[in-house]
């Protein structure tokens, strides 16, 4: 394996607690190289799941955080100037296709719709990536797979995938794990006691009750891990919750107050 791709190899097992049969389903999908789409609210473990699967399958993982300014050449590659003239630089998608990595486009709806169209030839039976500027047709490596993630929660009319893009993927739904599982995750990731973790999860449930009633999104598992880590360093639990759970999630003073009060019913 070349040096370029080696850096993307995942050496140690990323912790992932399976919630249902997503691991088996993903493995099956990978065995037929079906492109996958992971949907779910922020901080529920989509990216961690991809890392874990890449490690499990022993494949390198190239992650691209998508944004509005991203162009097609940011994905496939471009000519650069150097002392001896111009030189072609592969983009992440081209590297992945060439060397056989899993390419993970995180928050793909953030990219403009016309940008995402470049992935189309790679995600059907052709499995090729045309580099028009270079005049090359890259045939995808047999190990190559494309994975995208997005959060259906805050997608707007402007930010949605085209049907022609959506229909090229198999989809897995992610959500916050149920109480016992989430507690287990928080304990594992932060080292706080199961009792404290249980309380943190219960607080998260309180905020999730308010989703759509003043909150756009509930408290995520990721935030619970932040809060747990703070508590682990000796910060007072109420303060840790305020910093890690309540303040980041809302700017509405009434909501902040209600959540603070909900936190104080646990600690």
């Amino acid at each position: 394996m070349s040096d370029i791709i080696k850096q993307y190899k995942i050496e140690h097992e990323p912790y992932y607690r399976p919630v249902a049969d997503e691991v088996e389903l993903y493995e099956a999908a990978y065995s037929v190289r079906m492109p996958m789409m992971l949907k779910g609210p922020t901080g529920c473990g989509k990216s961690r799941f991809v890392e874990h699967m890449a490690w499990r399958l022993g494949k390198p993982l190239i992650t691209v955080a998508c944004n509005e300014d991203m162009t097609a050449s940011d994905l496939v590659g471009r000519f650069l100037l150097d002392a001896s003239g111009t030189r072609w630089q592969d983009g992440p998608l081209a590297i992945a296709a060439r060397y056989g990595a899993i390419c993970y486009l995180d928050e793909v709806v953030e990219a403009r719709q016309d940008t995402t169209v470049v992935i189309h030839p790679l995600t059907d039976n052709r499995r090729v990536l045309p580099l028009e500027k270079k005049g090359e047709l890259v045939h995808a490596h047999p190990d190559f797979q494309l994975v995208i993630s997005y959060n259906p929660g805050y997608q707007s009319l402007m930010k949605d995938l085209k049907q022609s893009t959506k229909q090229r993927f198999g989809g897995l739904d992610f959500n916050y794990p149920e109480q016992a599982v989430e507690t287990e995750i928080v304990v594992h990731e932060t080292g706080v006691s199961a009792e404290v973790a249980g309380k943190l999860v219960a607080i998260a449930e309180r905020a999730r009750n308010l989703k759509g009633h003043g909150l756009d999104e509930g408290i995520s598992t990721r935030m619970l891990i932040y809060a747990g880590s703070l508590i682990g360093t000796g910060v007072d639990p109420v303060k840790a919750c305020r910093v890690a759970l309540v303040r980041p999630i809302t700017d509405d003073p009434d909501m902040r107050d209600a959540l603070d009060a909900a936190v104080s019913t646990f600690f």
Partner: protein
Amino acid sequence: MSINFEDYQELLDPLSLALRESLRSAWPEAAKVFSARGLDNYIKGAAALHSLGKGDSLVATWIDHAPLVAHEIGEDAVPDLVHTALGLASKTSGTVIELVLSTAPTAANRLGDEALFGAYLQFINTLLSQAPRGVRPMLENLELLFSQLTLGGLRRWALWGAHAHRTDYPEQANYFSLQSKESLAMLQKERKGTLFVDVQRRINMYLRALWARDFFMKPTSGDFETREGYRPYIEGYFLHLPDAYDDYDAGGTKLPGLEMYRAAAVHSAAHLVYTREPISAEALNPWQMAVISVIEDARVETLAVRKFPGLKHLWAQLHTITPEQCVTAGDYLNRLARALLDDSYADPDPWIAQGRVLFSEAALRLDSNQTSWDIGVQLAHEFMARRIPFNPRSDVLTAPYRDDNRYFWEFEEFDFEAAAAGYEAPKQVRRQVSLMEFANVVDVETAGDDAEEIWVLGTELFPYEDMGKSFNEMEGKEPVSQPYHYAEWDYQIQLERPAWATVVEKRPQSG
């Protein structure tokens, strides 16, 4: 039924062109907040105000502000508003009525409840008769006043001013425009810590966060005469909370009004969540009911605390009774209430200790309120030996957040309709029959107008010895309808008398 603007041409015609135009432009907005009936009231209100002859700007104010009031507290408040405005016409100038209308949305917003708004309008009416010169400056400052006072507080503040400066008009104007020192001092005195309208949204979110469901809340204004106000109560799925809470002095620490609201709201919500069946009040005396109430409160609180441990602290700090208070039955009730909630509270009394033991033994049976009934009756019985009299009026729970528990008592009420059912006279039946049926039955000669059945033959029946006269002509009576009663307006007493006029229908004579 749908309502078109043009349908009201008749009412609109007397209005000036400008008014008709502004009504037309307000129409689409109004149609959003009013139902068809509400729109009808809205237009008729405009026409009625116009007929007062107090100028166009009064009507224009109505057109602009009535939909805002409906938006705040519902369209049912709008007829009240126009009636008040019409009623004020004989007492005050058009400008003041206009002010009442233009400040009505503010009042509606701050009161947030139709019943309270009705009480506010009544208060304006009263004030106009007591301090006619004060109303105008008060309305000009209404927003400021309502940001600090409840309706009860406003009423006390205003009536104090009205009494103090009954005849001194300049001073009255000073007082009501918040210029005089005593006016500000009174305002300071009446001002409440936290108003319900200011925290309603927070409390709503808080309850929703805890139980993932919505609870409906309404403010009550119980502090008309005293500052204390009503206890919270639950009725018809609504949590009725006081319209303001002062900060609570809990043994040296100040508990802000918002915390009081939380404690009260979450306690009532716990009742709604955990008390699913009513407790029958049959065969219980008031003392037993009082003890069962305390146990039931403790039951729902314990269940809530199991889920949300922090609630225990929130509630416990509002119990301030100590073992030294041991005179009345109420003292013991309150001590029992505190003992069941707060483990750290030490109480040497054996009755209280027994209550604690019984309650903790029932820890696994708290799902059903039968447990409360059982423990309550037993404890009530034990207490009888002390011969301490119980007075349901004065021996009440002092923890300010607790509701009055009317929610879960079920009284078997005497149902008048059900009781009357067996005695009601059978309804008279009228049947169309054939001649053979008619001829084959024996006539009941004693039957009067109240006969159970009246048989009707399609044709006239003549006796066998035909003299050219039918039975009807010989002995028939004109059928008379049941009397109908109608209400009638008595102009001398200016009241409507219900069921005053009686109408009886008869057949017209032929010819």
